[in-house]
């Protein structure tokens, strides 16, 4: 499962992944998210840069630095 859980604020006890769904980061990003490392990880698992940006686009809009200029 490819998701942005690793850079998302904790507290939900990973509800969505536990129920077979990727994390959308609905609690917002952690204070100092390592976005680049997370992006590399997601790309290593087959996501395109656009898809990676899309993962950051639902609840943490602007959280991903390369979001600018990427078609929604």
């Amino acid at each position, binding site marked *: 499962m490819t998701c942005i859980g690793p850079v998302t604020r904790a507290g939900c006890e990973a*509800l969505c992944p536990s129920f*077979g769904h990727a994390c959308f980061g609905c609690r917002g990003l952690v204070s100092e998210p390592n976005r680049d490392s997370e992006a590399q990880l997601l790309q290593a698992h087959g996501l395109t840069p656009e898809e990676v940006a*899309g993962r950051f686009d*639902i609840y943490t809009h602007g959280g991903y630095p390369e979001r600018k200029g990427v078609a*929604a």
Partner: protein
Amino acid sequence: MSGVNVRVEVEHLTRVEGHGNIVLDVKNGEIKKLEWTVVEAPRLFEAMLRGHRWDEIHHIACRICGICSVSHTCASLRATEAAMDIPISDQTLKLRRLIFHGEMIQSHVLHVYLLAAPDLLGVGSVFPLIQTHREVVLRAMRMKKLANDISHVIGGRHVHPVALIPGGFSALPKREALEDLRERLEACKADVEATVDLVKTLKLPDFERETEYISLRMPEEYAFYEGLIYSSDAGPAPVEHYREVTNEFVVPHSTAKHARWHRNSYMVGALARVNNNYGMLRPEAKAAAEALGLRTPCFNPFMNNVAQVVEAAHCVYDAIEILDELLQEGLRQEAFKVAPRAGRGVGVVEAPRGILFHEYEYGDDGRIVRANCIIPTNQNHESIEDDFRALAPKILDRPQDEIRHTLEMLVRAYDPCISCSTHYLDVTFI
């Protein structure tokens, strides 16, 4: 009522979801102004959906409402599934109907006990009732918890379920969890009975205004999750024609759109459903209706509270039946794969507050090009004002406080979900 001056300004009305005002201005016995005004900012959800993928849309759309998130999830999934011709299994249908019943019980219990009952018991909120009617409050909480737990077991979360996805479920509930729900629903039958006994003792205002009632309808089942649009004036209509049914329009004093079809307004919600589909209710729910003096067709909007109790009874018994079927058949992991494609689809369900429409248009890449959501409360705003116009002249001789309270109770009877309904943005380009 010549010579009467009345000024009612309720800003904002309490014990409803969201922010709305009541304005009544009477000079010399003549009603100068009588409005139900929604003052919240529009939320522009349809614009937020644009560009997003088919498999994440329902997660965003369900955030429209925290009370009826299951309804929005299901309307959204059904629109996506209609657009892409995605089939669902019998097991998925049963699980969705079950989680739907959970939401219906949760929402109706919330409204009847926590929002409407304080009016009828003569207090300002549920909190004084903890002292005076402890058993009642505990029962309400017990019923609400059970209903929320149904959502948690089936959908993975008490609100905004995660396990419901286009084509089926991403994870299935455990057998023991279903057995536990079964047991607690069985115990809930006594709470339903006690609820009927309580509501029987409450006196609702005596007021009638016949109107058009719109809901879903199915031939052999009380329709919540699917069906055809049905109007008490005009009969059935296909769901694809929903725009011809709703005819949304804007009014200057409200940020929420209004709707009308054959008359100046129509009513949706529990009373509309019971009026249109009484024959399909379970016998236990019909017994509750009889005990509560609800005879259809019923034209008293205050009886929407009673219709909600009747539906809650229906849902408890029907949920037990669905659980029995699921437990007997046993849940199986089902393999399904969705191939996203371009298309257009309408998803219609009955949310607790009435008929709910989602329509999506997808591009080739499986992303939303255009979305439209029409929320039940939108469809009720004009009906609330028509009731105001019929009711106010009859009660102008009463003390001002009583006039205000009666109008408040009328709006509350509709159980409006105002935030969901704010849609309209008046943009002036310069």
